[in-house]
């Protein structure tokens, strides 16, 4: 988890299926590959989100809340030449905000 002030941002072209769009990625300025800025795939970001979802839903399966709300900040990086997500601090707060709610009826009955 990086603090946002340390970043220099950079715009990169992303290609996903037929769509192309620019994404502002975090670049802390340090080491990186030096291939040319070709259009990147969005796959790495999707994988990051999927992995977070899979891990959290495993937790929910165990504690069985009626409702779960997760907020997390994701900043993108392309330092390895591929676009991936970085879980980040949002304005100095924690990276994850998770709210689990159980109604008074108990977890097993709905």
């Amino acid at each position, binding site marked *: 988890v990086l603090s946002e002030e340390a970043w220099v941002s950079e715009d990169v072209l992303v290609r996903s299926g037929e769509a192309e769009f620019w994404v502002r990625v975090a670049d802390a*300025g340090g*080491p990186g590959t*030096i291939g*040319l800025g*070709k259009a990147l795939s969005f796959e*790495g970001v999707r994988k990051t989100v999927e992995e977070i979802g899979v891990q959290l839903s495993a937790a929910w399966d165990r504690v069985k809340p009626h409702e779960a709300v997760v907020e997390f900040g994701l900043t993108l990086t392309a330092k390895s030449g*591929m676009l991936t997500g970085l879980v980040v601090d949002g304005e100095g707060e924690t990276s994850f905000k998770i709210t689990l709610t159980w109604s008074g009826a108990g977890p097993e009955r709905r």
Partner: protein
Amino acid sequence: MGGQVDSRELRRHVVRVDTNDGEPLGTGFFIAPGWVLTCAHVVAGAEGVRIVPAEGGCPVPGAVAARSAPHLSGRSAFWPFPDLALISTTLTDHPCVLLDPRSPLGGECHAWGYSEREDGVAPTGSPASFLFEGVEGDDYLKLKAGQAAPGLSGAPLVCPSRRAVVGVMTMTRDKRDARGGWASPISALVTGGPGIPDDLAELGSEIRRTNRAAVLRDRASWHRVLPVQGSDDVLRKPWGDFHKTRRPDPADLLLPGFGVVPYLLRDADLTAAIAWCESAETLALSVVSGRGGAGKTRFAVELCRWMEHPDRG
């Protein structure tokens, strides 16, 4: 030791690696007839690319024949060592760089590749120079005091003291600053080692043998990349056109250096000697024997003239 690198001569060995759609990916260079070396992250997952020689000529298709492992997810921007890929092409009429698996000897190293000069403007090719700091724990060569800008990946790193290419540019320490970067050592390609896929190591050691032969066959071409200062003046060239002086000696006409009489009837010997000069042997001896006055000096003069300007014949 050490010295300068002639950018114009070095770039004859360099290519731009493009996608099949013509989008630039990075740099590469010729290491054997029909073979281009670049970084694994330049070709990434592509099977086919387009090779654009720096000296012009039509772009040709290239097939990625072997590559090291892809990037692992995680925080490190480094691709698994050695981050190299071999591309085969149909181009064979090109000079090859001399590869040296040893580390740079220190001092300044030079690269030439398609690094971006300005944001968003297609690179035309640029030189870069770095100071060699040493070898990392994972064997990457660490460089400082030079800018490794995007596009330089896959560029040859020449060590003037070794008079050879010792590495392949892979990483920067900072894209926007002259902090240096990292290069993958040639030893990873030609001697193999842990983490280097078998097909890459096999092709690498095979290519190394071809590399040496290809460079030695055309050694003058590689020597031009690393000119030796004053080399043109080191050897006395005791030949020239005959100029008639006020009181010429008739024997002057016979002096071999003047070459007054056209050189004839020795074509076969001369051709054999030229082939000897151009052979791929690292060290070879040839003896020219004959009685005094048989024409040994004239033969040597004619051979030197031809080797200096083969185009004039």
